[in-house]
């Protein structure tokens, strides 16, 4: 994210803070405060990973979602613009199509499953990468 700069960016700061917390502070916390320490470490880790790959995950999801809708012959409203609002609208359009049964047919279902699984796994690798390892799948 910060390739042009030789000082720590946001993601690196959070990751480093997370390490300092878990290695240096956590062992010193009294037992009844340990859980809070673990939660803070967890939150810092998620935030750091989201800064690194969240935007790419969103961009990939938006692109796949638009293709999926187009291939299924679902017209997109011309009001969909670029940016984060576009993804929200694409997701909404996909939800409407799913509920209307537009992905019930086996081939469409397979394409939908592939898109949803990819999106979910991108976000699990941000929110809880360990969960990907435990099911034997990863990037």
């Amino acid at each position: 994210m910060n390739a042009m700069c030789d000082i720590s960016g946001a993601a690196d700061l959070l990751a480093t803070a997370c390490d300092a917390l878990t290695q240096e502070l956590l062992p010193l916390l009294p037992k009844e405060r340990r859980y809070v320490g673990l939660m803070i470490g967890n939150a810092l880790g998620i935030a750091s990973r989201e800064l690194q790959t969240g935007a790419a995950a969103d961009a990939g999801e938006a692109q796949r979602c638009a293709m999926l809708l187009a291939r299924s012959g679902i017209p997109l409203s011309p009001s969909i613009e670029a940016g984060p609002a576009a993804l929200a609208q694409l997701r909404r359009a996909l939800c409407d199509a799913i509920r209307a049964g537009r992905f019930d047919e086996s081939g469409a279902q397979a394409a939908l499953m592939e898109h949803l699984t990819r999106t979910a796994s991108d976000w699990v690798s941000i929110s809880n990468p360990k969960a990907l390892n435990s099911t034997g799948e990863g990037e």
Partner: protein
Amino acid sequence: MSAASPATAAVRTPMAAIAHWLQRETGAREVRITRLERLPGGAIQENWTLDVTIVGGEWAGVHEWVLRTDAPSFVVASLTRSQEFAVLRVAHANGVIVPQPLFVCGDDTVTGRQFFVMKRIPGIAAGHRLTRDPGLIPDGEALAETLGANLARLHAIAPPQPALDRVLPPPKSNHALATVADYRAYVDTRNDAHPALEWALRWCEIHAPRPAAATLIHRDYRTGNYMVDAGRLTGVLDWEFAGWGDPSEDLGWFTARCWRFARPDLEAGGIARSEAFLDGYEGASGRQVTRRDLEYWQVMAQIRWAIIALQQAQRHLAGGERSLELALTGRIVHELEYEVLAIIAEARQ
């Protein structure tokens, strides 16, 4: 926002009121409360250790009880304490292993909130401990079998039950489809869209099983909600979500991946293989549980947990309850979506 719990003051000051109320309930000459302490856990309901010494009347003696009351902050669609007490009493009368329900106070002028009193049972409920420490459950298969048989006794309770007539809403003609409609109604109140959940709901709509005869179901029967002492089941807790419905919902919830804690490889609540649990259940109920049924209700379980996680996130973001724990619970949604897609993919093959 103060860190101190307002509940402490709210229930501690009416200690005398509780003692007085218990004196009338037990027909005692005198009731002395020797201990009243909040037990950990319980975001919606609070459980308090209640030790009493009773002088006179049929309850004369020293007792170790638990007082269960609403937490002050947050109410989801679940039973009131007096409704929960009525369900617990029916379950207990039908041989389900539960803490024995004793007295109920539906009058919220006594302490400001409804509450009931039940016998205290020994043991540990914490799911991460039970699934991690083999010393706590030396024989997981035997415990799972007991839990299955115990659930079968609950599912033997069918409507109509006069004691539950005005307590539970009547059963739906198609529990699965009614559940899909409920979850969609919630999803539709949100500003954000969740395609994976939407697809899982559509999948549940297309694959809805034929309606089963409704029975009493617990709707939160899982590791973390039962007490284990010396490896044995001492009681099933938390009856606030009970209702009439398809009994397979409880089987899917119990075996769902999200309730296996440290042992995702052990399908029966992280304590045993699913066969042990289902053997106990099928033996005691005479019902046959198909893999398809189990998978269907596991998908529904993941959806339900995802919706609860979204609600927790909303409490933090918009409900005036800023909390790191609630915020992080919201992030579980990704994992639940990923897992629900994996179950659907397997079921498609």
